[in-house]
């Protein structure tokens, strides 16, 4: 029997960080406001008091500087967890991530590992307007040399970090700020998640709904509603956006013969474009209908709530898309 505990997404993240700090001397957390403020989203609240300044480092607003320093510390034998408050500021550190973290191993001919973990808050919602509402997973997933993870469930929020810290190569972990207060049940006796694989969150036979991050719970809600009218969907949570777990994706679509891909990121040149292309390249003759994508509308995210909501796929959009694909009245 699985024992279940109820936990917020925030608490799940915090337990992950705390466990990492307890388990490895080399681990430290650095980021803007992670210490005295308690973390911009209160994820690291209390950790400074518990672990001290050496392990919980407040840093100045120098994204390129401190992300680069995290990379340097990783090269020199430490295991830094670098928190970039949100992905919105992540581009200030993009040069460090692309030209150093992702590249040093290769251009040194395999001599320099960069075992850094970079966590970024991410996502659209809460009316934060254009500069603070980004789904930039695809930008990072574009870069060879990076491992890009997306914590779409509480279980992953709790356990991804431990595995990410085991990686000899740089890992970007996307966390979703709009999920922080959501409470969910997670099993107590599961202490590991396999972050190298996508996860089938719901088994079904009629259609594969492929998604990640903020899309996972949206798609699960849609799937449950669809089940009540006799439509049996399979929901695949990609979980690792680079390198993609092609096997799981293709196996699911080969079974259902239909694929709907859902993400919040802008539709053009996105994760969904990539998956759609791979389905077409690898299993064209398994398709019984064109692949359909629901993704962000190509507009800087506006401030008003109704426009913000209209900018990204919602549960009903998913339900309607599935019905349409299955010719369901």
């Amino acid at each position: 029997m699985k024992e279940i505990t109820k936990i917020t997404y925030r608490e799940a993240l915090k337990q992950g960080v705390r466990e990492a700090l307890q388990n490895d001397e080399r681990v430290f957390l650095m980021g803007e406001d992670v210490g005295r403020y308690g973390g911009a989203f209160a994820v690291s609240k209390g950790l400074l008091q518990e672990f001290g300044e050496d392990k919980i480092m407040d840093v100045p607003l120098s994204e390129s500087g401190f992300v680069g320093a995290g990379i340097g510390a990783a090269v020199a034998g430490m295991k830094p967890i670098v928190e970039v408050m949100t992905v919105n500021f992540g581009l200030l550190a993009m040069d460090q991530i692309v030209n150093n973290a992702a590249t040093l191993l290769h251009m040194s001919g395999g001599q320099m590992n960069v075992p850094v973990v970079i966590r970024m808050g991410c996502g659209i919602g809460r009316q934060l307007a254009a500069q603070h509402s980004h789904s930039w997973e695809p930008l990072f997933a574009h870069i060879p040399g990076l491992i890009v993870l997306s914590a779409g469930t509480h279980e992953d929020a709790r356990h991804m970090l431990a595995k990410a810290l085991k990686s000899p190569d740089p890992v970007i972990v996307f966390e979703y700020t709009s999920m922080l207060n959501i409470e969910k049940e997670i099993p107590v006796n599961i202490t590991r998640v396999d972050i190298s694989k996508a996860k089938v969150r719901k088994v079904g036979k009629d259609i594969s709904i492929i998604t990640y991050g903020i899309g996972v719970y949206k798609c699960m809600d849609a799937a449950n509603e669809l089940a009540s009218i006799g439509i049996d969907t399979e929901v695949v949570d990609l979980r690792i956006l680079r390198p993609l777990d092609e096997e799981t994706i293709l196996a699911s679509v080969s079974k259902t013969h239909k694929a709907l891909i859902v993400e919040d990121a802008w539709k053009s040149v996105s994760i969904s474009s990539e998956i759609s292309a791979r389905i077409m390249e690898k299993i064209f003759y398994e398709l019984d209908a064109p692949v359909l994508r629901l993704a962000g509308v190509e507009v800087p995210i506006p401030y008003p709530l109704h426009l913000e909501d209209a900018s990204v796929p919602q549960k009903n959009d998913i339900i309607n898309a599935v019905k349409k694909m299955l010719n369901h009245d």
Partner: protein
Amino acid sequence: MKAEEGQHLLYQMQLIRRFEEKSAEQYTKAKIRGFLHLYIGEEAVAVGVIQALTDEDSILSTYREHGHALARGLSAESVMAEMYGKKEGCSMGRGGSMHLFDASKRFYGGNAIVSGHLPLAVGMALALKKQNKKNITCCFFGEGAAAEGEFHESMNLAALWNVPVLFVCENNLYAMGTALKYTHSILELEKKGMAYGIDSVAVDGMNLMAVINAANKAVTKIKKTGKPYFLVCNTYRFRAHSMFDAELYRDKSEVEEWKKRDPIAIFKKYLLQEKLTTEQEIAIIEARIESEVQRAVDFAESGTLESIEDLTKFVYSKKTEL
């Protein structure tokens, strides 16, 4: 200074120069491609600073780093082979001229985004501090880098965290083709370090003895205090920014003027004056270098190209277990 020591320093500077002349030659024959940035004229900086470091100290450099690599003890063979793109190169041929690496010698590049390696150097120094090690990280960059945001972020972080890093600015007066006065509001670059509360000193980078003294002092200070240090070496590159450069931005007379301050000539004169060497010994050193450079070319020529099947090697570590 002992005669042996002096002769070794001369050998290092002369090797760098001769090696680079040969590199330029091989470039015109299309044996070396990509960018090739020559260090000729600036040899005293690399040789003078690196002699102050121990094997356990780390070095990060720029895309104009053949001199630093050779001064650090990477073999001329492995550097030339790297520029030939051969597997025997110090970075398996994956990096080329701008990305020389040798982790066993704690030589961490070969970084070609201007100022991109400064945060790295701070982070490596931070690790040293956390690990209670007594070593330092030495980071070379040009004055062009001092205009980048990452320079200022790194200075601030290093001072704020008190980490053992030696910032060495090689001020050769031109950021590619734009002169210092068009790129910096303050021409005395050491003042930028002072603004962050960092010990900052400027030195004549054409004079090896002056660089040696300044570097020794800097390293001693860092090892004592654990704090960062900023050393500005005012120097000059005799050759173009990279190979394909018509040098429209400076007068030939300016170059000729600086050549009178050739660091190798100055140091040779010093050694002879101090009777630390003889013309004959210098001739022997030069002959030795000639054959060493030729050996490097032969080594690179006979090196092997990596198989295309291995193209995607080194993107991820072999043992990425998630």
